[in-house]
């Protein structure tokens, strides 16, 4: 022990000495126009067609632009690379007029051919310039029949059928416009040589160390305030928080709620908070008895005190959920009254089922959960343990099964679970993206199907299909309300929570606004003198 303490002291002293002669201790001093953004892991590629990783998207939205995008503050769609657009043929054709004089990072100019090139690369399986990109978001664009250039700056999309989500999907990152010449030049290596029209261009990428972006002087909106943005990957939450406190990073995302609460009080730090466009829920595999019995699913529903769960696992930063569509979004089922937390009712329901089916109590089930935090479940383990304790109270013995989150979803879509934690963050701010993706019967399959409960309601299927084709929002809202009522009655899932999205940043960061879509748009950010 003495040896240990001695060494500790020695090293600490060495550290102090080093700090002394090392000069600049914190990065803010070295360059006041550099912003450091730290997060849990590094990007996988910078090709927008080859990724589904949130940490990558944070970089992509600063490198690339899309035809349309969200307003700086709200979820309204506004022009971006397209100056204007019009719909024709009852919603089957869309014509976009492009902004003139937009430059890519590699010096080429944006034109209609470039847009067509990008969408062909996204849509066509045998496009010669695909270079192995995996296109995980292809299903979001399958309503497009063809894309053609009808003028030097005019592009026309023809759709297979009218689609209510088409325009929203054009604001998603997979629809980013990449320089065609860069794609042709770098081929498979596009992922490390990205060239877009965004406010920043890639300067250097040292894998698992840092991604350095530099301001793009010729950006069409004007040069951004910052000179450099540096993304650093740091896996441990507590280290990321400590880096923020020490001034080694300016912004940090995905910290645990309790950590954020602790940081909130500290001077020099600011917490930004937004109602999240997400849902965290408990899936119940309906093909596995006794979960095929409605009463069992209702018993589970009644056994969970959602508000207490949010207090424990989210430090209170979230709202209880009744249906999948979050309240911050249109299409939310407003009239729906949640079932009460009522363990006594649960016990009764279970007793009825036990008598009916000749089962012995307690029932035994497994509960799958993911090991890593997700945006909608920052502490999945706490949630799983909470649910286990709650269900034990009413007569269900739960075995917890942890998995790496990727394996987790793979095993859930293969239907290996009884109960499982799951969730979703919207891609395009449309109710369809929640309801159809997560509960339509066409999305049941073993390899990546997202209907994890295997809920096969024909009625819901028809309602959702009709809503997809309908372009009138009022009518769609009505259809989604009907569908959600039906889903609520059938209870294939227990919706748990709509999480608030929170990030921690240093006070000297100005002009960075945590967007409701959680997109990390750093164009307007700057580093002020701040408070030290």
């Amino acid at each position, binding site marked *: 022990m003495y040896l240990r303490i001695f060494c500790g002291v020695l090293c600490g002293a060495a550290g102090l000495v080093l700090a002394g002669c090392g000069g600049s201790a914190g990065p803010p001093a070295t360059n006041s126009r550099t912003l450091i953004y730290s997060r849990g892991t590094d990007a996988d590629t910078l090709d927008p067609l080859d990724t589904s990783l949130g940490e990558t998207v944070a970089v992509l939205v600063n490198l690339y632009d899309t035809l349309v995008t969200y307003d700086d503050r709200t979820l309204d769609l506004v022009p971006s690379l397209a100056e204007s657009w019009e719909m024709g043929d009852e919603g089957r054709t869309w014509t976009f007029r492009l902004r003139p004089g937009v430059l890519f990072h590699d010096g080429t100019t944006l034109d209609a051919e470039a847009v067509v090139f990008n969408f062909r690369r996204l849509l066509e399986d045998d496009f010669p310039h695909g270079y192995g990109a995996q296109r995980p978001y292809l299903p979001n664009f399958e309503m497009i029949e063809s894309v053609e250039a009808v003028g030097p700056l005019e592009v026309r999309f023809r759709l297979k059928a009218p689609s209510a989500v088409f325009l929203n999907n054009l604001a998603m990152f997979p629809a980013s416009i990449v320089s065609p010449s860069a794609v042709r030049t770098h081929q498979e290596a596009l992922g490390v040589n990205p060239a877009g029209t965004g406010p920043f261009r890639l300067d250097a990428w040292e894998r698992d160390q840092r991604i350095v972006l530099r301001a793009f002087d010729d950006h069409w909106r004007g040069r951004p305030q910052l000179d450099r943005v540096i993304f650093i990957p740091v896996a*441990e*939450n*507590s280290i990321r*928080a*400590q880096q923020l406190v020490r001034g080694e990073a300016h912004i940090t995302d995905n910290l*645990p709620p*309790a*950590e954020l609460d*602790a940081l909130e009080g500290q001077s020099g730090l600011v917490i930004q908070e937004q109602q999240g466009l997400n849902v965290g829920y408990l899936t119940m595999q309906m093909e596995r008895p006794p979960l095929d019995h409605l009463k069992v699913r209702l018993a589970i529903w009644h056994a969970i005190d959602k508000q207490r769960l949010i*207090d*424990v696992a989210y430090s209170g930063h979230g709202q209880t959920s009744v249906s999948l569509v979050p309240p911050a979004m249109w299409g939310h089922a407003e009239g729906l009254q949640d079932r009460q937390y009522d363990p006594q009712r649960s016990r009764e329901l279970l007793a009825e089922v036990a008598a009916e089916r000749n089962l012995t109590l307690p029932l035994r089930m497994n509960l799958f*959960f993911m*090991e890593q935090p997700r945006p909608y479940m920052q*502490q999945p*383990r*706490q949630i*799983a*343990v*909470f649910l*286990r*304790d709650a269900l*034990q109270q009413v007569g269900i013995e739960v*075995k*917890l*099964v*942890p*998995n790496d989150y990727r394996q987790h979803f793979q095993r859930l879509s293969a239907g290996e679970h009884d109960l499982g934690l799951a969730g979703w963050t919207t891609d395009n701010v449309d109710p369809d993206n929640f309801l159809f993706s997560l509960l339509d019967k066409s999305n049941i399959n073993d390899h990546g199907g997202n209907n994890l409960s295997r809920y096969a309601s024909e009625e819901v299927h028809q309602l959702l299909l009709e809503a997809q084709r309908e372009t009138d929002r009022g009518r769609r809202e009505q259809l989604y309300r009907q569908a959600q009522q039906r889903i609520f009655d059938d209870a294939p899932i227990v919706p748990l929570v709509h999480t608030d999205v929170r990030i921690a940043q240093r006070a000297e960061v100005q002009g960075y606004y945590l967007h409701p879509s959680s997109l990390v748009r750093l164009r307007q950010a700057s580093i002020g003198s701040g408070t030290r």
Partner: protein
Amino acid sequence: MNTSLPDIPPAAVLSDRPASRAWRRFRRNPSARAGALLVALFCLLALLAPWLAPYGPNQRDGQFQPPSWRHWLGTDSNEYDVLTRVIYGARLSLVAGLVSISLAVVVGAPLGTAAGYFGGRTDALLMRAIDVALAFPSILIAFLVVTAMQPGWAPVVIAVALINVPLIARQVRATVLTTRELDYVTASRALGASHWHVMTRVLAPAVWNPLIVLATLGLGSAILEVAGLSFLGFGGDAADAEWGSLLNEAKNHLRTTLWPAVGPGVAISLTILGFNLLGDVLRDALDPRTSGER
């Protein structure tokens, strides 16, 4: 100390005379007493957990409460009492360590005996395999087992057992090699005893004492290895109290709440310390060749 003892190999120690001498020496050694005390303490915690723990292992009583009279070691992110979890954790950690070491002995001891007894090609092959296994970083072996079997307590126990098999086998072989040529062994061979008889009836008792020492020493490191694997997230049910997974859980909130880490961390350290103290003394006491000098 060395010179006062007759120069006989350890395996020949069969009568109870050296055993009682070992016991005397053991009792006189203060660090042995400390080690035994620590180990006994944690075994007691494990055995009497339901009576000693102030709360139920899954009883919720508020999140992140600092240490107080109500909760001596505070509460954790699951609203559980840390002291209670640490006490229950002793069960899983000790049992997992014990099972994996026993598995290792069950597999390793026969292997080592066979290698030492038959010698020749069997021996060469086995020693080569052991060298390989020892050269390979143990954590990689553990990864492989856990990868192939999915995370859970069973794969962790098997992995830790596998890591320890070569160590056990090598030690047993060394003992058998020295014992093989002793008079009473050659005598029983000459009397026509079968290989099986010689190995199980004649050699096994000689192997037993050093094996106990090795297993005790190994138990400490096995507990450590189990904790390490579950710290990396390869363990079983998250609601089970186990020291490594308690630490894994606590590390997420390290900066704001340190106490959920302190309890399990100190508990592992003390347990391993106990086994190390005990193991050192046992080794010295039972092995005259290395007494005092290793």
